[in-house]
């Protein structure tokens, strides 16, 4: 059976624009949540988000290239560039048909949508810019990354809301495992912090308000949690068939060993217990591990009342007596909920925890919720050897993606 190694990673997020600074900020419980600067948020009830602050596109791309890149595609390309570099690979021409890209995006090119529709509806423009369609399409980042690195193998885009990146990495993992490809770039990207998106989320009443103290607004698993905070960015992994990685002497960060994918088939926003629980079990079953082998869970941990309660119940259901032993944290407390990117950003955090033996904390934890009574690694990072870790993504729409990574001994 073919196995899959993670040999490269890249992250471009609010909490850091490379893996080292990203992880350092997480370990030091530094939240990137601030008052919104991308537009004037004064009219909104929620005026905070986790932006990639002071990001200047022309620092990274030539003008001609930028014409065709929405913000979400830019982030995807930047994270992919890091993943390629850190893998140290030179993909040979004859390998390109077995080199693919799978990226997730929950929202697509909403910045382009927003400004185009503003012109169309508010300013009575009679036409949209001809680059609108190639910029907004969900697969733009996947295609742009394929073009950049000459990836000609199986490639696609997943759009499963908050699970998009989880599904992307899982699909890419299986493509290698089952022989469709030898190397893959996989992850997710989203840049959903627009006036329109904020209005949309505001009316669902799931956002933390916290305008007075933005950095402490997102408090997953804490009794006083108020909701999630929108984030943005991208995460990308370089995945490689194990022998392929060994032959070229690549540093193997971890083995991606399990992927559980399920559907709640119950409610368009409310999570179930059984769907996520089955996804966690499937990921462990595929990897051939049991809860005793898992030392860390990077939780979906949005910080809403319902998610964190349900996720706690899910972990108890799956882990039984090990539920109280396993370390659980939500790094969304710091980088916010980056929608279709979030699973990949969190996977980078998970892989670095595994690699460094340090578990990033759940920041802003103030007091225990009697119903959320597990070990959420509150506020302080913890040194701990992590043999295997799970990363949970449970999406609106009930589509769940859970990945299992483990250390190579």
């Amino acid at each position, binding site marked *: 059976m073919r196995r899959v190694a993670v040999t490269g990673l890249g992250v471009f997020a609010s909490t850091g624009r490379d893996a080292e600074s990203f992880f350092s900020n997480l370990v030091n419980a530094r939240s990137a949540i601030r008052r919104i600067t991308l537009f004037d948020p004064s009219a909104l009830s929620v005026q905070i988000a986790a932006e990639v602050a002071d990001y200047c596109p022309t620092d990274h791309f030539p*003008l001609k290239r930028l014409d065709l890149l929405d913000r979400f595609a830019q982030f995807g390309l930047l994270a992919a560039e890091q993943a390629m570099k850190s893998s140290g690979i030179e993909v040979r021409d004859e390998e390109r048909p077995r080199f693919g890209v799978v990226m997730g995006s929950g929202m697509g090119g909403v910045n382009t949508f927003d400004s185009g529709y503003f012109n169309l509806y508010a300013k009575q423009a009679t036409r949209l810019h*001809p680059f609108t369609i190639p910029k907004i399409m969900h697969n733009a980042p996947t295609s742009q990354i394929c073009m950049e690195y000459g990836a000609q193998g199986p490639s696609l885009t997943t759009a499963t809301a908050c699970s998009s990146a989880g599904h992307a990495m899982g699909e890419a993992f299986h493509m290698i495992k089952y022989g469709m490809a030898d190397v893959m770039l996989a992850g997710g990207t989203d840049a959903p912090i627009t006036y329109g998106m904020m209005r949309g989320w505001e009316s669902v009443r799931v956002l933390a308000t916290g305008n007075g103290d933005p950095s402490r607004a997102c408090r997953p698993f804490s009794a006083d949690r108020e909701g999630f905070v929108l984030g943005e960015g991208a995460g990308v992994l370089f995945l490689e068939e194990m022998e392929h990685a060994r032959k070229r002497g690549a540093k193997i960060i971890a083995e991606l060993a399990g992927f559980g994918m399920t559907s709640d088939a119950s409610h368009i926003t409310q999570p179930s217990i059984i769907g996520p629980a089955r996804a966690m079990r499937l990921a462990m079953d595929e990897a051939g591990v049991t809860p005793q082998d898992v030392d860390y869970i990077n939780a979906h941990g949005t910080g809403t009342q319902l998610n964190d309660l349900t996720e706690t119940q899910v972990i108890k259901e799956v882990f039984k007596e090990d539920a109280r032993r396993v370390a659980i944290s939500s790094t969304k407390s710091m980088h916010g909920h980056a929608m279709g990117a979030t699973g990949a950003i969190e996977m980078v955090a998970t892989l670095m925890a595994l690699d460094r033996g340090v578990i990033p904390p759940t920041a802003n934890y103030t007091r225990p919720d009697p119903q959320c009574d597990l070990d959420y690694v509150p506020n302080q990072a913890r040194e701990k050897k992590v043999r295997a870790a799970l990363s949970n993504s449970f999406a609106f729409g009930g589509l769940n993606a859970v990945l299992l990574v483990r250390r190579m001994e």
Partner: protein
Amino acid sequence: MNVADKVIEIITREQHLEPGTVSIDSTFAELGIDSLDGVNILFALEEEFKIDIPDAVAQNMKSVRQVVDSLTRVIEGKDIADLVAMAKGDAPAQAS
């Protein structure tokens, strides 16, 4: 500024080219303008001159001179039936 100068300015700007790169004799192929760049340039010209360039005419614009000639006729409201016919293949194509 005449139509030719304005067209050259817009192509230079939209393609992010160095000033002086584009001349009346440049072809789109020489300037590296692909089909998507072409529709972008047409969009910018339509915005600038507040006109609609019919698809049939747009398809024939492969050089700066063709753009200027076609645009001048559209701006001046002249009959463009021959251009439309040419695009449809009803008339012998002119040397470009």
